[in-house]
C-alpha cells in the first residue's frame, strides 16, 4: 500500500511542476509586451517601462519563472497593483467563503445523488429508474449559472426564502451564512449530483448482478438488507473514483456561481483579475486551484486503492 501511494505521489510531482509552468507561461503567450498588456493599449510608455522593470519583464523569461516559483515556495505570489495589497492577502481573505461553498456543494451533490442513484439502480426499468435517468440527463445539460438565475427567481424573488445576493461570514451569523450559501451550493451541486446519480445507478445495477447478492437473497434476507448492506457498500467503490472529477467540476462551477451571487470568493477575484489584467493574481489562483484538483485526484487514487486492493497490483 505504502509503495503504491509513494509511486502515485512521485507521478504527481512532474504534473505539479508542469502545472506551474503552464500557469506561468500562459500569461506570456500574448505576443508583444506584457507590461502594455497589463496596462492596456493607451498606456503611457514611461509607466509601462516602470512596470516592466518592477515586474521583472525585462529579464529572460526562464529567470522570471524561477523567480516566481521561488517566491511561491515562500508564500509570495506578488502584489496586486489595483488594490495595493499582496496577492497572498487578497486570496487569504476570500478562501473561507470558497472552501465553505465547495464543501457545501459536494455535500448537497451527495445528498441528492445517492438516494436517486440507489433507487434507480435497485429498481431498473421502473418509473424510479426513468425519473433518475431524466434527472441525470437534464442535470448535465443545464448550465449552472442559468440554474442559479432560475433558483434566484423562484426562491429569492418569488418566495423570498433565501437572499438573492451577498454573504455573511459563518462566525458572524451561522444561520444567515448557510441561508446565503444554500442557493449557490445547490446551483453547483445539481450538475455534480447528476453525474454521481448516473454513476451510482450504473454501479448498483452491476453489483446487484453479482453472485454474492444472489446468495444473500437465496438465504432469505430482506430486499432492503440486500440492497443497503450487501450491494450499496460495494457499489460505492467505483463512485469514489469520480469524486476527483467532482472536485474539479465544483472548483470550476464556483468560479462562475460566485459571480452570479456576487459572493466575494476566489472565483469572483479571478474573474475580476482577468478584467483588470492582474496577471500575478490570475497566476496565483490558477496555480492554487489546479493544485487542489491534482492533489484531490491523488487522494482519490490512494483511497480507491485502499477500498479496492486489486488496483494496487495492476
Amino acid at each position, binding site marked *: 500500500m505504502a509503495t503504491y501511494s509513494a509511486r502515485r505521489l512521485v507521478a504527481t510531482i*512532474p*504534473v*505539479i511542476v*508542469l*502545472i506551474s*509552468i*503552464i*500557469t506561468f507561461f*500562459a*500569461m*506570456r*503567450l*500574448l505576443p508583444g509586451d506584457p507590461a502594455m498588456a497589463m496596462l492596456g493599449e493607451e498606456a503611457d510608455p514611461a509607466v509601462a517601462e516602470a512596470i516592466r522593470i518592477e515586474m521583472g519583464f525585462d529579464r529572460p523569461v526562464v529567470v522570471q519563472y524561477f523567480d516566481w516559483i521561488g517566491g511561491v515556495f515562500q508564500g509570495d505570489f506578488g502584489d496586486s497593483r489595483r488594490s495595493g495589497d499582496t496577492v497572498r492577502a487578497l486570496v487569504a481573505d476570500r478562501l473561507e467563503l470558497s472552501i465553505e461553498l465547495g464543501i457545501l456543494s459536494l455535500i448537497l451533490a451527495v445528498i441528492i445523488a445517492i438516494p436517486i442513484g440507489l433507487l434507480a439502480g435497485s429498481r431498473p426499468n421502473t418509473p424510479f429508474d426513468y425519473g433518475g435517468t431524466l434527472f441525470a*440527463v*437534464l442535470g*448535465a*445539460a*443545464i*448550465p449552472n*449559472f*442559468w440554474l442559479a*438565475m*432560475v433558483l*434566484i*427567481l423562484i426562491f*429569492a*424573488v418569488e418566495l423570498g426564502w433565501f437572499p*438573492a*445576493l451577498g454573504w455573511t461570514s459563518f462566525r458572524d451569523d451561522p444561520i444567515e451564512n448557510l441561508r446565503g450559501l444554500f442557493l449557490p451550493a445547490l446551483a453547483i451541486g445539481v450538475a455534480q449530483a447528476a*453525474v454521481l446519480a*448516473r*454513476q451510482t445507478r*450504473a454501479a448498483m445495477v452491476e453489483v446487484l448482478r453479482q453472485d454474492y447478492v444472489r446468495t444473500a437473497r437465496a438465504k432469505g434476507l430482506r430486499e432492503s438488507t440486500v440492497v443497503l448492506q450487501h450491494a450499496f457498500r460495494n457499489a460505492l467503490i467505483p463512485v469514489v473514483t*469520480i469524486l476527483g472529477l467532482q472536485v*474539479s*467540476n465544483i*472548483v*470550476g*462551477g464556483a*468560479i*462562475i456561481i460566485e*459571480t*452570479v451571487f456576487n459572493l466575494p470568493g476566489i472565483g469572483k477575484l*479571478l*474573474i475580476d*483579475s*482577468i*478584467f483588470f*489584467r492582474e*496577471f500575478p493574481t*490570475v497566476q496565483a489562483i*490558477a496555480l492554487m*486551484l*489546479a493544485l487542489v*484538483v*491534482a492533489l484531490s*485526484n491523488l487522494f482519490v487514487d490512494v483511497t480507491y486503492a485502499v477500498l479496492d486492493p486489486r488496483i494496487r497490483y495492476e
Partner: protein
Amino acid sequence: MSERAIPMEARSRRFSRQRDFARRFSRRPAGMVSLGVILLVLFCAIFTNLVATHDPIETDFDATFAGVSGDHFLGSDNLGRDTFSRVVHGARTALLVGLISVGIGVGIGLPYGLLSGYIGGLKDEALMRVMDALYAFPAILLALVVIAALGTGVFNVMIAIGVVFVPVMARLVRGSTLSVKEMDFVLAAESVGSSTPRILFRHVMPNILAPVIVQSSLAIGFAIIAEAGLSYLGLGTQPPDPSWGSMLGQAQRYLLSGEGQLAIYPGLAIVLTVLAFNLVGDVLRDLLDPRLRGAD
C-alpha cells in the same frame, strides 16, 4: 473474381454497414428527436435572417420589456430588442463555437494522442504528463487562463475551449491507440515498411474514430455551455452581438426587478441544444462503442 470486383464489393459492404447504422439509429426515439432538435438549431443558425423576425441588435425604446405578442413572439429586452430574433441569432454563435472549438480539440488532440500512444516508452510518458497537467485544470479555469492571456472575444473563446478539449481527446486517442497498435494489421503494415504517418493515419486512426466521434458530440454540448458561461461573464461574445450567454448576462441585471422572463428563453435554448447533443452522443456511444456504455 475480377480485379474490379473487389473494390465494388468493399464499397457495397461499407454502404450496407452505413445503412445498418442508420437503421439502428432510427430505432432510438431519443436519438431521432435529438437529431431533429439539432437540425432545427442548425437551420436557425444557417438561415438566421429567414427565421428571425427582427434585426437582433435593433433597439426600439417604445417596446422595452414588451410581453409575448404577435410582433414579439418571446417579448423584448431592456432596449426593446426582439428576444426571439436574438435567440435565433444566438444559435449561430453557439453552434459555431461548439463546432470550431471541438475541431481545435480534435485537430490537436487526435494526432498528439496517436503519436504518443504509438511511439510508447519514455517519450509517451513525457507527452502524457503534459496532458495530465492540462487535465488537472478544471475546464472552465483552463479556458479562463487562456482568455486572460489572449484577451476577450468570441474568437479567443473558441481557442480557449478548444485548448480544454486537447487533453481530453489526446488521452482518449492514446488509450485506444495502445490497444490497436498491437493488432495484426498494424504489425503487418510495419513489416512491409509503411511510414509512421501512414500507419498512424491510414491504419490506426480509422479504428479509433468511434470513441472520438462519441466524445466530440458530448464535447459540443460542453462547448456550448462553456461559451455561454464565458459570454455571461462578459468575456466571450461582446454586446450588442447576440449570444445566449451574453443575453443571460444582461438578463441578470433585471432579475430582481421583476423582469425575470428575459432569463428564461436563452436558458431554455441552451438546455435544449445541449440536451440534444448529449443524447445523440449517448446513442452514438451505444451504437458505435458498446464498451463505453455506462463509462461515466
